[in-house]
């Protein structure tokens, strides 16, 4: 990472996360739990988040299948733009932990951090290009008022050149963070690095 950005309580530093209830002891995990941890995330066996969710391995497996396909599948919306949507949704929902992870991923993929600084400062006006701003506005709208979403919200995406497959990928990326943010915010808390 080139530079630490801290603003409004958000950061692109690497944070830890601790669960508020008992997690599964990795040494006592069943074969099914081990298999699901391994397919979920490379560091799942040392992560409180996954060790808590793996109390219900079948549910975690389907969540991870959906999450990994949405964020990493080839083609369609660029991975950096999926990360931008995830970052904006996390910022709007107030998920400091998720925002730190996806700020880092955006920067790794886009090779720049200017948009991250904008999203931390004020997500509603963020975006360095018309295309980024359209992605940001749609992500905010889907997060805050899905009941009011309509054709007028989709048209600006087409106007900046997104095709239907890319728009679907954007809907998936924003929606899966409605899921992820709620778990991270309500099952435990971020742990910040020692100053």
């Amino acid at each position, binding site marked *: 990472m080139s530079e630490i950005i801290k603003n409004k309580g958000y950061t692109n530093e690497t944070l830890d996360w601790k669960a508020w209830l008992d997690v599964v002891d990795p040494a006592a995990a069943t074969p099914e739990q081990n298999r699901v941890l391994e397919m979920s995330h490379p560091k799942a066996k040392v992560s409180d988040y996954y060790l808590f969710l793996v109390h219900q391995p079948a549910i975690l497996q*389907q969540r991870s*299948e959906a999450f990994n396909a949405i964020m990493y599948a080839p083609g*369609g919306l660029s991975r950096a733009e999926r990360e931008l949507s995830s970052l904006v949704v996390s910022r709007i929902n107030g998920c400091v932990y998720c925002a730190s992870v996806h700020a880092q991923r955006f920067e790794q993929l886009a090779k720049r951090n200017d948009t991250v600084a904008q999203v931390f400062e004020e997500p509603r006006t963020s975006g360095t290009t018309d295309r980024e701003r359209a992605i940001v506005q749609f992500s905010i709208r889907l997060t805050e008022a*899905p009941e009011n979403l309509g054709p007028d919200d*989709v048209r600006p995406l087409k106007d900046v050149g997104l095709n239907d497959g890319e728009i679907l990928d954007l809907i*998936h990326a924003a929606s899966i963070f*409605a899921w992820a943010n*709620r778990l991270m915010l*309500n099952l435990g*808390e971020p742990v910040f690095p020692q100053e």
Partner: protein
Amino acid sequence: MNQNEAMSPQDGDVVDAVVGLKAGDPLFAVRHAREKVSSATQASYDLFFGEGSAAFPVHERLAVAWYASLLSRSESLARHYEQKLDASKLDATVLDAIRRDALDTLAPTRLSAMLAFTRKLITRPVEGDEAALQALTHAGIATADVVTLAQLVAFLSYQIRLAAGLAAMKALEAEAK
């Protein structure tokens, strides 16, 4: 008696049904080009509403889903979950409290604690705190069932937005015709 309460995969794809997507529609093809996502979304639904468990039966899960959809003002999904719900399995006061969003009328029970957690997760996720989770434990809900409940409400937040996004795409497609 609602024969449909126990869902099975043969019931088809729920998001397609709720949005009104059919094989042959251009948007259906767009959505199912991401088959891993659509199948994991449906498989999640089947896990939540298929068999349930003694500690967290399907009719309580459907009550949570109906309440989450109402709070999110998702008419199509609220209708879906209300229709799946076997009202005879739930106390009339619970159904009324959900419909009117008036949980304060309920006596404290396991289900009322779960509905309160649902409300917090749906409407004010950033206010989540340790006390809200402890309230579930104090209501006698085991950790594994807390995980199911949290995953269920978080999944619903996703499903509601996925359906809303697809419906908006469909509406734009209809305008262009």
